């Protein structure tokens, strides 16, 4: 047996023994675990599962063991993913700690910062949110105005962030602040970590068109950020912040896992749904035009998935690739929106129900997911911004 095969056997045995039965089922949206002090574990097995995985470091499988991670190589990580998928094991926890700030601290954090923050992400103790966008700074993120003044061992931070996903359930926020107002806009920014549990911070949930409120306005009013929580050098936060965005896009696009999704949800494939709502005529779907749209989306998804796997195979180190993350962010976002539009056409008016018992749960979810899907080409940098990045950084087209 090769090392990898014996690792697989070991993982399989361990999962068999340690993954609770209720954690081997598809995870509904409201049971996804994000951790942190405000997390409620409705199902006690979710907490058991989290603790056992965290103990092994397998909540962050590829992070070094000295920071609580699993220390797995890329290939071992894929084995773990495969074995979890085999028994439909839920991801024990997910969130911005794992996909964004963790990898960024590994790139740019000091030894002390890594030791302080990473283990508490791995264990699920601390949940993070992202304080980037401001009312006046979206795509043009570098024009941000939230001000941090140097007060010796700490900064005093004043300003407003917006669209802060999960701010109301987060313990800490990583954020970009202006530390040098006189400098050109990219050069006066710093990247700091802020404890949300302080009087200077207020969060107000905002409702989305889909009806849910996953994101917030975040007001900083003389909030305190300790100097030891400055990541990267003072006024060099833009570099750190941009790298974080690559980790973000990579995670959104399933690049770190080579297209394997840690989630096994209830959503049925478009053909399955179409068979029910449209019906078959002989061995084909009864609506030829809709069928063609479905096939196109399926084929594009298959091509996208092969590309995720290729990117994974090309990137042997297993780290987050650079600018090509924009390719995935752009294409994946558009593909996801397209899929939901087609689903609407398939289900007709049954997919536009808002509430009440004239619609099934699946149908109501379709309505909400369709609306929610519109964010996939906005959040994490809009599609237009991704195209700007590709044309500038990948194709080298002039400004």
């Amino acid at each position: 047996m090769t090392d990898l095969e014996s690792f697989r056997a070991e993982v399989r045995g361990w999962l068999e023994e340690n993954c609770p039965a209720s954690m081997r089922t598809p995870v509904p949206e409201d049971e996804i675990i994000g951790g942190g002090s405000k997390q409620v574990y409705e199902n006690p097995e979710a907490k058991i599962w989290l603790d056992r995985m965290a103990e092994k470091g397998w909540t962050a499988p590829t992070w070094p063991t000295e920071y609580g991670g699993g220390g797995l190589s890329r290939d071992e990580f894929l084995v773990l993913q495969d074995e979890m998928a085999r028994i439909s094991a839920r991801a024990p926890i997910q969130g911005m700690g794992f996909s964004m700030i963790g990898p960024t601290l590994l790139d740019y954090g000091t030894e002390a910062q890594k030791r302080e923050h990473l283990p508490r992400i791995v264990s699920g103790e601390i949940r993070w949110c992202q304080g980037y966008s401001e009312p006046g700074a979206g795509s043009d993120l570098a024009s941000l105005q939230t001000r941090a003044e140097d007060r010796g061992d700490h900064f005093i931070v004043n300003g407003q962030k917006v669209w802060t996903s999960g701010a109301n359930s987060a313990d800490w926020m990583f954020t970009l602040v202006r530390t040098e107002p006189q400098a050109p806009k990219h050069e006066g920014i710093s990247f700091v970590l802020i404890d949300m549990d302080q009087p200077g911070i207020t969060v107000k949930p905002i409702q989305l068109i889909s009806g849910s409120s996953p994101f917030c306005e975040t007001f900083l009013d003389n909030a305190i950020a300790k100097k030891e929580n400055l990541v990267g050098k003072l006024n060099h936060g833009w570099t750190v912040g941009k790298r974080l965005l690559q980790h973000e896009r990579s995670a959104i696009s399933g690049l770190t896992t080579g297209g394997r999704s840690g989630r096994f949800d209830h959503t049925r494939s478009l053909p399955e749904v179409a068979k029910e709502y449209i019906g078959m005529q002989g061995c084909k779907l009864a609506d030829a035009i809709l069928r063609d749209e479905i096939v196109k989306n399926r084929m594009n998804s298959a091509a996208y998935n092969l590309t995720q796997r290729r990117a994974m195979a090309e990137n042997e180190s297993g780290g987050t690739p650079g600018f090509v993350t924009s390719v995935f962010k752009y294409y994946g976002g558009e593909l996801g929106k397209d899929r939901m539009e087609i689903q609407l056409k398939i289900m007709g008016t049954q997919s536009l129900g808002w509430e009440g018992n004239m619609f099934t749960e699946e149908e109501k979810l379709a309505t909400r997911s369709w609306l929610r899907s519109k964010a996939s080409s906005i959040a994490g940098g809009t599609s237009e911004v991704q195209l700007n990045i590709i044309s500038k950084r990948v194709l080298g087209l002039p400004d």
Partner: protein
Amino acid sequence: MALVLNEEQNMLRDAAKDFCSKNVAITELRKLRDNKDETGFDREIWKQMVELGWSGITIPEEYGGLGFGYTGLGVVMEECGRTLAASPLMSTAVLGSSCVLLAGTDAQKSELLPKIAAGELIMALALEESPHHAPHRINTSAAKSGDGYVLNGSKKFVLDGHVADKLVVVARTAGKEEDREGISLFLVDSGADGLDITRTIMADSRNAANLELVNVAGTLMGEAGQSADLLDRVLDIGRIAISAEMLGGTQEAFERTIEYLKTREQFGVAIGSFQALKHRAADMFCEIELSKSVVLGALSALDEDSEDIAKLASLAKSRLTDTYNLVSSEAIQMHGGIGMTDEHEIGFFIKRARLCEHTLGNAAYHRNRYGELEGY
């Protein structure tokens, strides 16, 4: 599934790139066209390709081939696609040799494969009977006569048909027009009595031919009436191979266009600084990245003899058709007036793209097939 090239395949790619750019640049195709060359490719160049082993690249070593596999074939096709190199690779090394390998008797394999590998035999597959790809809509008939068969019917768009030494003709020994049952493959000598071959001059300056068959003698390959599955596999190999060629042409047209966007100035700036063009370029880049993956995926499925070959073949042929069409059309638009001139090479790509589109099924054909293969 191997989605990256190994070292050997990378070396082969470098060699192919080097050979094509030095010996079969687009200027060669232009010459063949302008000289109204009878053969439609340069036999001297083909000989050199044979020496490089390309004619036998997927033929097993026991039959004198390289046994290099389909991914190897793919990288060669891709490089040939970049320079629009005319050669009988597709007709002979892909379609012809696959027919023999999959449907031939042991005797036919031992006789023909070494000749193909040695460049002594040019082959062609006579399949289509209408202007649209319809591999099972076969009306050409084959009737038993003594030891062999006599074939009657007509064929269109036979790649390299007028220069082939031997043809594989798809004909029906039983059944009605669209039936799978009854489809058979026959080996026919190009000099056979009753066979009339007319070269068709196509927009891409490459070779095709129409055939008329009146009581032409043919030798059966495989089992009579039972070759639809074999034929599908041969065609899938062809679809994947031509997708690889299309990937090369797409990338070349795209890179030339990006270069133009950086150098051509209007309004005092490079036209590549206009966002209307940038976003279209970036969008094409994404489509090309996805195209690379499906071609590699499909080639590697052939090498691994995977169950997904048919689906991946349709995925590749459909996607590459769309992408090559998009990029070759945008290439002309972004070149402006100069893109419309015969003198500029960018126009060669749009012509080749459309011929490739109609070779072995266009995008809609393959979407329909993909849906069928997925069971809806």
